[in-house]
């Protein structure tokens, strides 16, 4: 059975690009336009991994990660930050929030897929 990955990004084109890369690797994809939209979709459905941007309206990525770690059903779900940010402060904040990896944009699909393969839940 294919594994499900949630994509959280305010850019529709970016969500589409990431979706193409993941679906090509055999994953199923759930899209959300920001942190709040993503939390509304975490209603018990099995999510094997979350890929989230940082700079998003309504709820940014760091806040979203902290909120996910408060959910009993998803606190062990690995989260990968996909962002154009490279500052160490942002990386430190994401790490402290509970993220497992940091991928910078523009990303090479094989690199993202390698990170997903390493962290995705069984």
């Amino acid at each position: 059975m294919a594994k499900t990955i949630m994509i959280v990004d305010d850019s529709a084109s970016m969500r589409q690009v990431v979706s193409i890369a993941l679906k090509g690797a055999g994953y199923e994809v759930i899209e959300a336009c920001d942190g709040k939209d993503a939390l509304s979709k975490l209603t018990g459905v099995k999510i094997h991994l979350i890929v989230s941007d940082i700079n998003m309206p309504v709820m940014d990525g760091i806040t979203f990660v902290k909120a996910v770690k408060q959910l009993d059903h998803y606190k062990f779900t690995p989260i990968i930050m996909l962002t154009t940010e490279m500052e160490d402060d942002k990386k430190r904040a994401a790490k402290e929030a509970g993220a497992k990896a940091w991928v910078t944009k523009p990303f090479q699909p094989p690199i993202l897929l390698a990170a997903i393969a390493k962290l995705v839940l069984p």
Partner: protein
Amino acid sequence: MQQIQNNADGKFLYISLSALPVILGGMVVGWQYGATLYNVLFSVLLVFFGIGSGLFLWRRHDNELAQTNFRWAQDENSKIAAVSTYTGELERLLLTISPILSQHVMVSREHTEQEITSLSSRFSCMVNELQLIVDSTDNAFGGRQSNHLDSVIDACRDLLQPILDLLGQLRQAEQKAVDDAVLSQAEANINQTLALLSQVLGHYRDDACALRNHAEQIRGEINNVLVALQFQDRVSQILTQVENNLLNLQKTIERIQQQGSNRDGDMLEVDKAVEHIEENYKSVSSRAKHSPDDSDDDLTFF
């Protein structure tokens, strides 16, 4: 030979007398047609001369043939004399040998008869003795010896019968075995089929490798397209930011203009506006990511 000569003279006279009327008739006819007597006589002489020479040649050939036959007859007579001589010698030799041979044959026959007589007497004695022994043993063991032998014989027969049956089956199987030529032909056909199959599989393998290479190339091109789309998305975001900032600037200017005479230069908070633009714009460090060559920090695990 004298007879042959007499026959030749008779034939000469016969031919001459037979030809004389013809010659005379020819002379008369020639004379009647105006030919001179001299020419006629000359013609007759030529005819007699031709006939005479032909007869001479024929007689000489005849004499030679007669001599040849005489010599052949002499040779044959000598050979017959030699054969008769050999035959006579053989007869004398046979007459000498035949009594000796007959004597030897009689001696060997007598010897053979004597041997036969002695052997038969000897075997008859042995048979009698064996019979006596068998009879005595049968009487001693109440016939069990013969029964034992019969049982042994039956056991041997039972033991050998399956072997004989198996030999018969093997012989039948051997007769029904496939001909060597058919086997070799079948083997050749199988080898040919295997060679064709391996060739086809080789072609499939090559095609699969080519397809795999093409798939890898397509995958690489798709990844490049995805990276390019990310750049395009980033540019569109920047343009959106610029557009929004320009709109905000326009609104700010309009608001200031609406103040009319009450406006002043401090109403346009440039530093604040720039700070606001910088906050919405992505970090300076992200500019480097517009270059696809910088891939050192693409992935970081926590």
